[in-house]
């Protein structure tokens, strides 16, 4: 049975790669070819889709803008979530259980509900069409996620670890940074990646809160469903390019996720 263990992830990954291969396939075709014929490899191999994106500022700035607000959001969400998750994990205080659950409720409504109110809110505080606006708006659903994930991992670490460190003379700050954080590294890696991911793909709010300056790539992509009809090749190329930053992020945090430190030896 153990010999076939590798078969499971392999088959799964093959399954995942098929549509992605199709996407990349499409990105090198003209829209005519995509809609006209069925070919496993572009008959007319063309770079024109990628050229368009990489040379047109409205396109590539979309990527840059997305990267900016997503990064801000990830740092903000995970940063605010760490102390909060610690508190939920280690302390009892008035309203703690209700607060914890309330956080999650913010993820329970469809984004459409927030579109108009957010537009009004962020315009009122003068943040319309800024990266900060989108980054802040996304904290609505990313912070609860980060808190819940981090709390889950922190609760797996026994309080005795904290106390052992104090007995050994660590201050709270040093303990948190040098001992605690490495112990929950997997949780931080996963939380950071998910925050990045959910913010990166969120379309509706990002579109609503921006106009020109901070317009994200996802919004630019909807342009392709415009007057000229569905420019599939372009969309496919844009979509393929979207994968790249995220792939970097997961590669970057893979060590956190995979290493899973054994319970700290003090």
């Amino acid at each position: 049975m153990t010999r076939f263990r590798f078969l499971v992830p392999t088959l799964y990954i093959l399954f995942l790669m098929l549509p992605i291969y199709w996407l990349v396939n499409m990105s090198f075709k003209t829209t005519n070819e995509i809609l006209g014929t069925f070919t496993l490899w572009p008959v007319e191999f063309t770079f024109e889709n990628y050229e368009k994106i990489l040379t047109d500022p409205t396109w590539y700035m979309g990527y840059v803008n997305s990267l900016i607000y997503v990064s801000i959001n990830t740092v903000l969400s995970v940063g605010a979530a760490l102390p909060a998750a610690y508190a939920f994990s280690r302390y009892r205080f008035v309203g703690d259980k209700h607060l914890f659950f309330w956080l999650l409720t913010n993820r329970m409504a469809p984004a459409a509900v927030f579109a108009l109110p957010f537009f009004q809110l962020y315009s009122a505080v003068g943040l319309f069409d800024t990266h900060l606006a989108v980054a802040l708006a996304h904290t609505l659903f990313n912070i609860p996620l980060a808190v819940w994930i981090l709390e889950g991992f922190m609760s797996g670490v026994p309080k005795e670890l904290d106390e052992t460190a104090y007995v050994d003379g660590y201050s709270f700050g040093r303990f948190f940074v040098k001992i605690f954080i490495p112990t929950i590294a997997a949780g931080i890696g996963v939380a950071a990646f998910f925050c990045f991911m959910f913010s990166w793909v969120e379309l509706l709010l990002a579109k609503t809160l921006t106009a020109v300056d901070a317009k994200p790539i996802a919004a630019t992509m909807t342009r392709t469903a415009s007057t000229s009809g569905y420019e599939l090749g372009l969309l496919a190329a844009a979509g393929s390019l979207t994968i790249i930053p995220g792939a970097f992020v997961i590669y970057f945090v893979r060590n956190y996720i995979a290493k899973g430190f054994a319970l700290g030896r003090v």
Partner: protein
Amino acid sequence: MNKTENQKAWLFVLPVVLLVAFNAIIPLMTVVNYSVQETFGDNTFFWSGVMWFEQVLRSERFHDALGRQLFFTFMILVIEVPLGVAIALAMPRKGPWVSVCLVLMALPLLIPWNVVGAMWNIFALPDIGLLGRMLNGMGFDYNFTRQPFSAWFTLILMDVWHWTSLVVLLTYAGLVSIPDAYYQAAKIDGARSWAILRYIQLPKLKRVLTIAILLRFMDSFNIYTEPFVLTGGGPGNATTLLSIDLVKIALGQFDLGPAAAMSLVYFLIILLLSWIFYTLMMRNEAQQ
């Protein structure tokens, strides 16, 4: 865990509360506001109390959409969670393949949802899409634009493809966080693989699995973009899930009242089910 009482812990959670509340309160007020008022489109509003709520709860259209939604969510949970856990258990813990696996598995999650819908749309077309061609080539009569069954099949397949990795990543991170000492003790105690799974791995994964299940539950209930781009809710309204229906009502008919009321009802359903699930899962911990 024995938590110590400490009211000053509020300082730790303050940043989180401020940020989230800032974003949450105004929309909530807005939605509640709209849900209890009626307008005739001329920007004057009249109090209508629970009228919209009654209308929504009685409407057959709502019941149909709710039914479809429940079925959809049930199906994907039943597939994605066990599958995700199984894959995470089968993945290597150390070595060069770990990075490869993690990166490749994360890719579907990173694609914007409208692209996901669009690419599956083409991918599944019977004449020009790889999946469509394959299935029809194998003898199945497959056309998701015309047949409700095929549409559902494609929809569920797309979601499994898109989101299972979330379960895998969460579960995997949870697995590697189990300290070696537990596996060592199990070895010394002579425990076999299934015992390790049952007495060590699954219990330690409980919290992580709860998060994964709740996340998938909520997100699938609210799903909009991918099915909309894939099928548009069709054929007919075969795949019109709650969110799609909601947007149709709000935008198509400019009926903010019923739309707002529906959003609230919708929200309360998710809230109730999540709360029940959460309480059930965490009830054991309260005993400790």
